[in-house]
């Protein structure tokens, strides 16, 4: 059995057994095989879906190669975001500096692809070799007439969360470049929604049916111009709290726009998101329409979920995701399917997040901050989970120990948000948990014979 590393003992918590506060927000322990990525990753995932911007990664080739077409973020128009651009720094630039190459790369790529803006992601070595990325960006911006924005995302300068902050700062610099598009008075920004498998379109449709206008979406299917008008929204509706709360706070301070936190996963949270927005506007028509939408959607959805719930009831699930706000929704969505969450964790949860997770889970549930394959597999086995919800890195952990898996990360191609997403989620979980292949799994057989599960 895997022992918990001593540096990590406070990052592991069993409800009903342990009394400590969960330690979080700290750098991963060296040698622990964290599932986290780095600052660059945080920035890259937030800005990635902006489809008419050039995303140039300044550094050696790896960071660009590993993030080429990495997300399932869809665009209704241009798809410049799906290409991978790198300054591909070589030894020569490491010695003599990469500014010249950065300038040449920006200039040629802007001329070739005509983006509406360019983001320049600084990777680990950019500061160390002395490049003044800000100065090059300013120069190219002057010459090209488009915003050219440095993103200070050097991998080692913090955690993924610091990458979110760097991305938020980059986005903030675009806000206020107004394109003058007319907006309805009841108007919001959707934040922390990345249009994976078209999810932003599902959510936008609900808001439109409510009579709420969208100024901008950060950043699913978004364009540079819409980000520019975001300051005219009346409310920021923030999902994926980890990535966008910082930007929401900055916008509140500068533009006085209040924000609320929502989640679009599961019936309960999806409905609450719509109601919270409706209540904010205090417009009886909007509220009435919202009630109608929720009633219609839920009435249509519940009977469709029933066959899945019947099969899945009593099964156990483990969750390991990036941000814990998503974990809350998943705990609730699984409950709706009759499934209990026995292990739940996140890469970047905060104190507040973990307190809430403690509240909504049952006794015996293990909560993990910044875990690793050995811990995760241990608790998944110990607690007898039938399903793991996570990303690609977690998938083989589940499969190797004979349990089902649901991809809830940025690479997925299946819409899981909204009411229709809930149905997809049920189908997805069902298709994995109920597959007959598990009967051949030796880990399953051992569990059935009363082994450790």
């Amino acid at each position: 059995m895997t022992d918990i590393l001593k540096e990590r003992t406070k990052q592991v918590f069993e409800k009903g057994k342990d009394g400590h506060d969960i330690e979080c927000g700290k750098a991963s322990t060296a040698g622990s095989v964290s599932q986290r990525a780095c600052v660059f990753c945080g920035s890259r995932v937030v800005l990635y879906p902006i489809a008419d911007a050039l995303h140039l990664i300044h550094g050696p080739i790896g960071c660009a190669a590993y993030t080429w077409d990495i997300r399932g973020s869809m665009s209704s128009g241009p798809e410049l975001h799906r290409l991978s651009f790198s300054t591909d720094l070589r030894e020569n630039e490491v010695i003599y500096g990469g500014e010249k190459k950065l300038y040449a790369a920006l200039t040629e790529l802007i001329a070739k692809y005509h983006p509406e803006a360019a983001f320049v992601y600084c990777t680990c070595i950019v500061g160390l070799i002395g490049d003044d990325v800000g100065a090059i960006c300013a120069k190219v911006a002057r010459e090209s007439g488009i915003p050219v924005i440095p993103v200070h995302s050097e991998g080692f300068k913090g955690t993924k969360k610091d990458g979110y902050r760097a991305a938020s700062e980059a986005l903030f610099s675009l806000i206020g470049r107004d394109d003058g598009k007319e907006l309805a008075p009841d108007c919001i920004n959707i934040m922390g929604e990345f249009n994976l498998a078209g999810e932003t379109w599902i959510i936008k449709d609900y808001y439109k049916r409510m009579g709420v206008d969208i100024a901008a979406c950060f950043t699913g299917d978004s364009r540079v111009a819409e980000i520019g008008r975001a300051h005219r929204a009346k409310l920021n509706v923030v999902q994926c709290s980890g990535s966008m709360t910082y930007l929401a706070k900055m916008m509140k301070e500068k533009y006085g726009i209040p924000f609320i936190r929502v989640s679009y996963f599961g019936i309960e949270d999806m409905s609450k998101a719509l109601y919270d927005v409706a209540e904010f506007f205090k417009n009886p028509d909007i509220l009435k329409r919202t009630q109608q939408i929720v009633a219609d959607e839920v009435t249509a959805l519940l009977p469709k979920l029933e066959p899945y719930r019947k099969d899945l009831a009593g099964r156990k699930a483990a969750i390991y995701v990036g941000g814990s706000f998503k974990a809350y929704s998943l705990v609730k969505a699984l409950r709706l399917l009759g499934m209990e969450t026995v292990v739940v964790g996140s890469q970047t949860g905060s104190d507040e997040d973990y307190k809430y997770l403690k509240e909504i889970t049952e006794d015996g549930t293990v909560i993990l901050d910044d875990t690793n394959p050995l811990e995760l597999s241990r608790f998944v086995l110990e607690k007898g989970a039938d399903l793991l919800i996570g990303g690609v890195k977690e998938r083989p952990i589940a499969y190797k120990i004979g349990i089902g898996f649901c991809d809830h990360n940025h690479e997925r191609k299946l819409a899981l948000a909204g009411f229709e997403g809930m149905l997809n989620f049920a189908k997805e979980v069902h298709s994995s948990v109920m597959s007959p292949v598990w009967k051949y799994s030796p880990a399953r057989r051992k569990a059935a014979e009363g082994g450790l599960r």
Partner: protein
Amino acid sequence: MSDEKKQYVSTRNACKLCSPLGACFAMRGIEGCIPLIHGSQGCATYIRRYGISHFREPIDIASSNFVEATAIFGGRDNLYTALDNVTRQYTPTAIGVTSTCLSETIGENVPMYLHSYLKERGEGKCGVAGQAPPVFYASTPSYRGTHMDGFHEAIVSAVKALADPALKRGGERINLISGFVSAEDIRELHRLLALYGKEYTLLPDYSETLDGGTWEDYQKLPAGGTPIEAIRRMGEAAGTIYLGKAVPEDNAGSYLEKTCGVPAAFTDLPIGIEKTDEFFRLLTELTGYPLPAVCEKERNRLIDAYIDGHKYCSGKKAILYGEEDFVAAMASFLDEIGVVPILAATGAANDKFASRVGENLRNTKAKVTVRDDTDFSSVLEMAEAEKADFVIGNSKGYYLARNLGIPMVRCGFPIHDRIGGHRILHLGYRGALNLFERICNALMEASQNAAPSGWTYI
């Protein structure tokens, strides 16, 4: 043939990966070995994710996890902690440390760190009681070369650290350095070597570690891999066959030659008849045994298949890309079945690449464009002017196939959009048969789908 340099300063949709990736996969091919990347957390995570999407297996890679202070004050303490923690958690039989662009740029002296770590560990000042796994180091700055440089570097660093330098050539053992091939290819190499009945060291060997069966309990480090003992004995072999020619000067083959007098032969990956014949000639030289009868049969069956299918691919034009060694060997194979690799590309920078590919094209008289130091966007732009019939290479080339509206034959690394990519057989006569059939079938499927009549006999 053209050797024009690329038009763009930037790299657009890279046709290469960074050096630590190759090092990590080579290290995972050593029994009980865990890679440890000295740098930011993201490097380990991205490389794991990239590999998991191909192999669909857990690929645990540790990181020394730099933070801002580490980059300023140096990573010695982080490396110590990481080595201790990874020893405690994984009980490895070896730890392979790689550098990154970050640790190289700040001038980390990792060999010195490791020297003092091992010394202190021997004195009980660090490490884990009862455990003393060997630690070896591959310098893999991501700004130099590609993932293939990291791959070869990891192998030579493992050999330098683990092979007994006091041994001398003499025995009948065979050393085979496999190149960056699929898990299925490595299993095929095992099968072929076993036919000769001699002891051998096949390095690296991730045929089980990155393509194992299902488990009863979670395995910290999956079984399989080149045994440490087999690496220790490499110096007493009769010779080393090194699959690949785009190999750094300081490599495992020449090291063993210099240190232990074991001669090294560098040969193309055995893809296609010609290159597989070359491979078997080297095995015959080393062992004194002729081509095994079963391989003779396989060779003959392959020729029979070539003849049966030749019209489906004769004169067809392919866009070929990937690592230098992969492209060079594939070009030879395509040429021998009558396919013209009109565009052969690699992301690695090497002036000799064009002439090397050219030498492998013995039949075609058509114009062939060979590019080194290029990327997928440049390949697409060049390909738009050509009328290629299919693209062949790793799954990143789907970008080409989709844009050009032509079929694609997936092989090489990575395959991220199909399952079983790591089980594609490329090597030997059976590998050639597999590739040949895939190519013919892809072309037949395309023409069948395009035909208004949709014939059911082709």
